[in-house]
C-alpha cells in the first residue's frame, strides 16, 4: 500500500503543534522585552464600571468580596488594586472579605500593593480586612444580615468591637455598593441571589477573568451588575481611569502580539480548508 502524498493544503491544515507553540511563545515574549504601550480599548461594561464607581458617595462604605487566587489573580489584580486606590482616594471606606481561603493571601498582597498610606487610608478607620470567612454562599448571605453575627475578629484576630469602622458598619444597610471579584463563571450568582434579590438598590460592581465574561454579560444587561471589569483589558481600563497604568496594562500589552499567531492561524486554517475542498472538486 502506497502512502498518499500530502498536498500543500494538507500540510497547511496540519501544522505541527510544536510549531504553533513556538510561534505563540515568540509573540508572547516580544512585548515583555519591549513593551508596546498602546492605548487600551474601553468596552461598554468597563465604562459602566468606571461610571458607577464614581457614583459612590465619598465617606460611605462598600463591601468588597474577593475570591480570586492563583491564575485568576493575575487577570484581575490590576482592577483590584486600582479600585482600592480609587476608593481610598475618595475617602470611601472598604470592608474586604475573602470568600475562599486562598483569596486571603492575595488580598493582603493587593492591599499592600495599592498602598493605603499613600491615600491617608488608615487600617480600622478607612478599611478593614476581615480575611477569609468560611461558608461561601451561606457566608455571603450572613454578612448581608450582620457581619458581627458572622465573624467576631478581623484577619489579625482583632475583635470587631475594637475596630472603629466596624462599630458603624454591620449589614447591608450600611453599604452604598458591593464590589465583587468572582472566580468562576457561576460564582457571581450567589451575590445576585443573596444581595440583589433582596436589596437591588445596592449597586454591584464586578471584576473577573475574561473567560467568565460570557456569563457576566447577561447580568450586566439585566442590571444586576452595574458594570464589570473583564480580565486584564477591563482592569486596564480602570487603571487608565485613575491615571496609573500598571499590572493589567502590562498583561494587555502582552496580549497584543500573542494573539496575532492565533489570528493568522485562523486565516490559514480556513484558506487551506477551502483550498482543499476546491482542489478535490476540480480533480
Amino acid at each position, binding site marked *: 500500500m502506497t502512502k498518499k502524498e500530502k498536498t500543500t493544503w494538507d500540510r497547511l491544515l496540519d501544522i505541527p503543534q510544536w510549531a*504553533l507553540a513556538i510561534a*505563540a511563545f515568540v509573540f508572547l515574549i516580544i512585548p515583555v522585552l519591549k513593551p508596546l504601550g498602546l492605548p487600551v480599548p474601553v468596552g461598554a461594561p468597563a465604562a459602566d464600571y468606571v461610571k458607577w464607581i464614581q457614583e459612590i458617595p465619598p465617606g460611605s462604605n462598600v463591601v468588597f468580596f474577593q475570591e480570586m487566587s492563583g491564575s485568576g489573580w493575575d487577570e484581575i489584580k490590576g482592577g483590584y488594586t486600582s479600585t482600592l486606590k480609587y476608593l481610598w482616594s475618595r475617602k470611601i471606606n472598604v470592608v474586604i472579605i475573602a470568600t475562599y481561603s486562598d483569596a*486571603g493571601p492575595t488580598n*493582603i498582597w493587593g492591599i499592600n500593593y495599592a498602598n493605603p498610606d499613600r491615600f491617608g487610608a488608615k487600617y480600622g478607620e478607612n478599611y478593614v480586612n476581615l480575611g477569609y470567612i468560611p461558608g461561601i454562599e451561606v457566608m455571603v448571605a450572613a454578612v448581608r444580615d450582620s457581619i458581627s*453575627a458572622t465573624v467576631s475578629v478581623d484577619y489579625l484576630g482583632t475583635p470587631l468591637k475594637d475596630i472603629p469602622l466596624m462599630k458603624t458598619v454591620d449589614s447591608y444597610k450600611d453599604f452604598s455598593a458591593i464590589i465583587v471579584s468572582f472566580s468562576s463563571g457561576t460564582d457571581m450568582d450567589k451575590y445576585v441571589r443573596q444581595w440583589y434579590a433582596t436589596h437591588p438598590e445596592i449597586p454591584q460592581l464586578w471584576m473577573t477573568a475574561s473567560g467568565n465574561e*460570557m456569563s457576566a454579560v447577561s447580568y450586566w444587561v439585566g442590571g444586576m451588575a452595574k458594570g464589570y471589569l473583564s480580565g486584564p483589558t477591563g482592569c486596564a481600563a480602570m487603571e487608565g481611569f485613575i491615571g496609573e497604568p500598571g499590572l493589567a496594562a502590562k498583561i494587555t500589552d502582552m496580549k*497584543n502580539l500573542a494573539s*496575532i499567531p492565533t489570528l493568522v492561524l485562523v486565516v490559514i486554517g480556513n484558506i487551506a480548508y477551502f483550498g482543499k475542498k476546491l482542489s478535490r472538486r476540480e480533480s
Partner: protein
Amino acid sequence: MANVVIRTHIPMYIISIISLILLAEYFVAFDPLAAFRKEMLTWGVIIYNFVTLLGSVLMLRFHTLRTMKPPSRDPKARYYSIVAIAAFFFYLAIGWGTGLTGTQYVTMYMQTVIPATATLWGLNLIFSTMGVYRAMRITGLEGLALLIGGLSYFLKEMPIVASIFPPITGIGDWFLLYIMTPAGRVAVLTAALISIVVCLRTIIQRERTAVV
C-alpha cells in the same frame, strides 16, 4: 433495611423539611422562620468547615497509602505523593507558626502557588492557539457562528486592533450584547429552571442523588 433508612431515608426527610422551611421563609415574613434560617446558616458554616477538615484528612490518607503502596501502573506516583504530603505539612507549619496573615506565609504563597498556577494558565495560550486553529474553520453554519462570535470578542480585546481600527470595540460590544447575551441568558434560564425542578424533586423526595 435499618441501614438504608439511616443512610438515605432520614437524610432525605431532613433535607425535605429544611428546604420547605427555607422556601417558606423566603415568601412569608414570620420571625421564628427567619430565626430558623439564621440558625441553619450557622450550621451550614460549621458543616462546611468540617467538610474542609475531612477533605484534608482524606487527602492525607490517600497520599499516605499511595506512598506505602503505589499503583503498579505508575510506580513513580509514590514520589508525587511524598511531595504532596511534604508540601501539606510545610504549609501547615508555616501557616501555624507565623499565622495565615504573616509575611512569611503570604510571601511563600505569592511566590509559589501564584506563579505555578499562572504558568499553567499561561500555557493555555499555546493550547488555545492550537485549538482555535483547528476549531475555527468554516465547515458549516455552526463553524461560521463560532468564528464570527469568537473573532468579534477576540479582536475587541486587542489594543493593537483597536488602535488600527477603533470601531472594533463597538462591534465587539454589539456582538456581546445582541448575539452572545441572548445565548448566555438561555443557558442561565435553563440552568435555573433545572435547579427549580431538582429542588422540587428533592423536597418531594424524588431526587436522591444528594444522599445516594
